[in-house]
């Protein structure tokens, strides 16, 4: 095992050296860094050209410059020495500093989107696999391919136009005209009717119910100006909590496990009580406090499960813990919604909450909830854009992986044993389908660090992608190398981790030492 890891690391280092040399040469040879000055008619043109030649050390041939760079970069390997030197950019900024800033920007932008895309993609993939060649499957496949085929800057421009500017205009007077409410309801009902499957009667009933519910909710929202003063309130939390409790029980334990269902319902009840109890506490919330409360919530849930026991105590604990976490999420969401009016009327926000650029309103002041809402309103559009475009690969991949597994002999065996469909899917198929997904996620983390070049540029986020692109446009190898090294190292490390995890998860794979 250790030999294997050491060998992998040595190989990785050699690959990195070779690739970085190539990248440096490619960048240096990709153009003329003095181009803009050459075409200038400024009287001090020569002086400026000399200054840049000196800054970028252009008199030294690129291969030698690479080794100079390498000498500085090698110092980064010395831990805590602070001697890390990745050179300076064409505007004189040290690359280490630029990378620090860019990394934060990129991670803020893409982390949420990637996690959500993975979750949604895997769920959709499983559902479409289980209902292969149904209307739902075709619909999801079509939409996934469609979004995959759309250029992202195009998606982004449309999102800004309608998701930000249009929605903000709507918020000025959040009234939904009756025809719109009916229309939205009808579309939702139709979609559900097509997606739900089954007999015509079942489809009609479900579709009709969804139509009525959506329309009524929209009318209610319009009448109460809900979008100006949103909130869930204890009633909605209780009802939604009960729904969550049932759903979690179905997925994790099966409804036949009454103890599990009971413990999750108890947790929901506790959650509604806690809703009133924690409100004053939440007013002084900090990120740490929320994290601690979240932990406490899960622990309470697990404890409830433990005391309810049942024939499978572990299952009850799991169900109750997950339910507690989700209900806690509802309470937090409700608190964010309570902060909405104060965010909305904040002088910095000027009544136009959804933003088209940047990662936060400059100079905004407020409590945890207002600041959290601010981050949310800035990240929502780029996140949606990234999710739409990257959803396809996860969905399609999970679908094919799941289909493959569902045809395996051991699934047939599991069925033959008389296991319930739930435990066949959740216990046998799903877990095994997840194994290869680990490889993809590992691969994605490298790409994630590299930033989403186009998304960044459309939403004016200056992250890793921007740094990289800027380096290429200015024929400036140092930023390019900085980004490249970050991406390559992360990708390699995570690939190694994925391979190790793979062998741990899948007994058929053995590492050759």
């Amino acid at each position: 095992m250790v030999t294997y890891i050491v060998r992998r690391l040595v190989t990785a280092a050699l690959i990195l050296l070779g690739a970085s040399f190539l990248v440096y040469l490619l960048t240096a040879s990709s153009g003329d860094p003095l181009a803009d000055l050459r075409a200038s008619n400024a009287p001090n043109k020569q002086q400026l050209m000399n200054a840049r030649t000196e800054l970028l050390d252009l008199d030294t041939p690129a291969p030698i410059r690479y080794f100079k760079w390498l000498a500085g970069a090698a110092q980064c390997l010395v831990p805590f020495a602070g001697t890390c030197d990745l050179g300076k950019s064409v505007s004189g900024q040290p690359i280490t500093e630029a990378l620090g800033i860019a990394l934060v920007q990129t991670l803020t932008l893409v982390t949420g989107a990637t996690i959500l895309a993975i979750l949604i993609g895997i769920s959709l993939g499983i559902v479409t696999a289980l209902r292969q060649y149904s209307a739902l499957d075709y619909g999801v496949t079509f939409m996934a391919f469609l979004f995959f085929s759309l250029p992202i800057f195009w998606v982004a421009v449309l999102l800004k136009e309608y998701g930000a500017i249009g929605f903000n205009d709507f918020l000025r007077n959040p009234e939904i005209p009756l025809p719109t409410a009916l229309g939205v309801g009808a579309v939702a009902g139709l979609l559900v009717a097509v997606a739900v499957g089954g007999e015509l009667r079942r489809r009609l009933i479900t579709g009709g119910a969804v139509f009525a519910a959506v329309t009524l909710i929209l009318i209610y929202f319009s009448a109460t100006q809900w979008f100006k003063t949103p909130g869930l309130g204890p009633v909605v939390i209780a009802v939604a909590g009960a729904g969550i409790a049932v759903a979690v029980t179905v997925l994790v334990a099966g409804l036949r496990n009454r103890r599990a269902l009971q413990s999750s319902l108890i947790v929901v009840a506790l959650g509604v009580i806690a809703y009133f109890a924690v409100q004053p506490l939440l007013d002084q919330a900090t990120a740490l406090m929320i994290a601690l409360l979240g932990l406490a919530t899960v622990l309470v849930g697990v404890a409830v499960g433990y005391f309810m026991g049942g024939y499978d105590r572990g299952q009850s604990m799991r169900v109750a813990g997950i339910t507690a976490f989700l209900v806690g999420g509802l309470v937090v969401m409700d608190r964010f919604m309570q902060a909405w009016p104060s965010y909305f009327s904040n002088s910095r926000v000027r009544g136009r909450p959804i933003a088209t650029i940047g990662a936060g309103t400059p100079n905004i002041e407020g409590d945890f909830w207002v600041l959290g809402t601010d981050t949310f309103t800035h990240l929502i559009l780029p996140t949606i854009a990234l999710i739409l475009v990257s959803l396809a690969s996860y969905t399609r991949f999970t679908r094919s992986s799941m289909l493959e597994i569902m045809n395996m002999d051991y699934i047939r065996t599991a069925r033959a044993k008389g296991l319930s469909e739930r435990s066949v899917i959740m216990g046998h198929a799903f877990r095994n389908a997840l194994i290869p997904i680990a490889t993809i996620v590992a691969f994605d983390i490298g790409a994630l660090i590299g930033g989403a070049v186009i998304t960044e540029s459309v939403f004016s986020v200056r992250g890793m992608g921007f740094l990289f692109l800027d380096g290429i446009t200015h024929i400036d190898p140092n930023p390019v190398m900085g980004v490249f090294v970050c991406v390559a190292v992360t990708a390699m490390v995570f690939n190694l981790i994925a391979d190790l995890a793979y062998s741990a998860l899948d007994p058929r794979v053995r590492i050759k030492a």
Partner: protein
Amino acid sequence: MRFGRISQAVGVAAAAALALSACAGTSGGSTSSTAAAGGQQGGSVAVAETNGFSSFNPGTADGNSDVNGHIGYATHSSFIYIDDKLNIVRNEKFGKYEKVSDNPLTVKYTVNEGVKWSDGTQVSAADLLLSWASGSGYYDDADAEAKTGTTYFKTAADTSGLNLTDFPELGSDGRSLTLKYSKPYADWELAYSFPGNGGVDIPAHVVAKQAGLKDTQALVDLLKGLKRGDSKAPKPEDASLKAVADFWSTGFESKTLPSDPSLYLSNGPYIIKSVVPEQSVTLVRNKDYNWGPSPKLDEIVVRTIGAAPAQVQALKNGEVDIINPQASADTVEQLKALTGVNLLLGNQLSYDHLDLNFSGPLAEKNVREAFLKTVPRKDIVDKIIKKIDPQAKPLDSQIFVPAQAAYADSAAKNGSSMYQDVDVDGAKKLLNGATPEIRIMYNKDNPNRVDAYSLIRESATKAGFKIVDGGLGKADWSSSLGDGSYDATIFGWINSGVGVSGTPQIFKTGGGSNYNGFSDADADKAMDELIVTTDKAKQDELQTKIDATIWKSAYGVPLFQSPDVKASSDQISGVTAMPNQTGVWWNVWDWSRK
């Protein structure tokens, strides 16, 4: 000569003002009124900038970007500023400067008492001296060819003006300084602070401390003690001066707000309050500031937005109040369609032109003339510029832009009238059946040039020219200028608006930017005379003559002046268009929220 050159400069500027206001007056109703009417005191405004803020010293070669210059302008003040009519406006509240003598040209600068850096230190002669040292290249003895000597201050400024001065004489009050020029220098009023830069930017007491000197006086003594550098006889570099110059060049570079507030001292209407790297810079009003026009806004937020569509959408969504996107017809139309937005249309000082090589298939004047006759200048302007600025006309002078007083006269006399309309028959006659193959080089990444090329190609083909597409990518086109690999080229120059040193740079035999091999004895003689002439009228006369000579030799044709688009929310008043790189920021103190 009592009024001397000031009156001339003002005269030029006034004429320019007339020309510009004529433009502005006809640009349609969307232009906002310039008066800061209805503005209140206080409030906050957000401005979009294309690039991220990177340096508190916009005067360095590295830090010389638009956004650094704009923020530098708002946080510093000087003896003068330039208004939107390209007038030089004196700021007597900051200090006075007067011409003591004409021969040799001697100017005395005095800073008023009470003009302070934001740490309370008086702005002194030492600050002026440091500014002079960095902007004059006085100590530099570097020889780029021989790789010897040292360039101390890495300035972005053109040092040729201040380099004519001797070491300044410092006044006994500690607030005044006198510059003596060895030769007359036409742009002496601008010499001290190059445009786009706030002027007295860098506090000497901070640089002295950071460079390891005892105090400000030590810095003054150091500068006084050193001799003018000579690139012919380079000396070993002076360690103390190098430390000072290095700190000046790089010490103020930062994308974040430094923990040491002395690195971002202000002596202007605004002070930098916070910086979010690559996102925003927040400026707040300098409470002490009373040495210049009084600002109305309490706060200005500068936000970094690169792409033009993103700027427009941010304006539409109310996230920013003032934008300056890249000019394109679609952007203009989009902005026109928005309610609550004032559109400010103007011209930049840059212009695109077609140059013909005086060699190869175009060596013969007849062929050049025939080719120029086919250039659809009106069509190019109609299709590329008119959508942005409906008043646009082809540029009719190789030397002047319409904002300059001499333009109209020169354009009428220089022979540009010959090339107003496409004359395919005339061209065919001149060609006399020949079908020369012309390779046109241009920047393929600039849509305006690509479109101009397409239109020229279409038209010239009709007269029998065989046009070869010689366009190159953005990284290559400029380095192939003048290498003879093409016969004609489309690219842009930037007219300085003021000053004459640009003319010989482009048109003189062997000039630094003379890429097409133009050489004319008469023009050379006129240009030799031009650069030693300080009389503005005489300068204009000579330039008009040169302009006509250039046109007569079928040198090429100017195509159009680049349009400039800015827009502001109608919640903001006091924002006006401005052609030079200071842009809307020139009157930052007039901005106010309605």
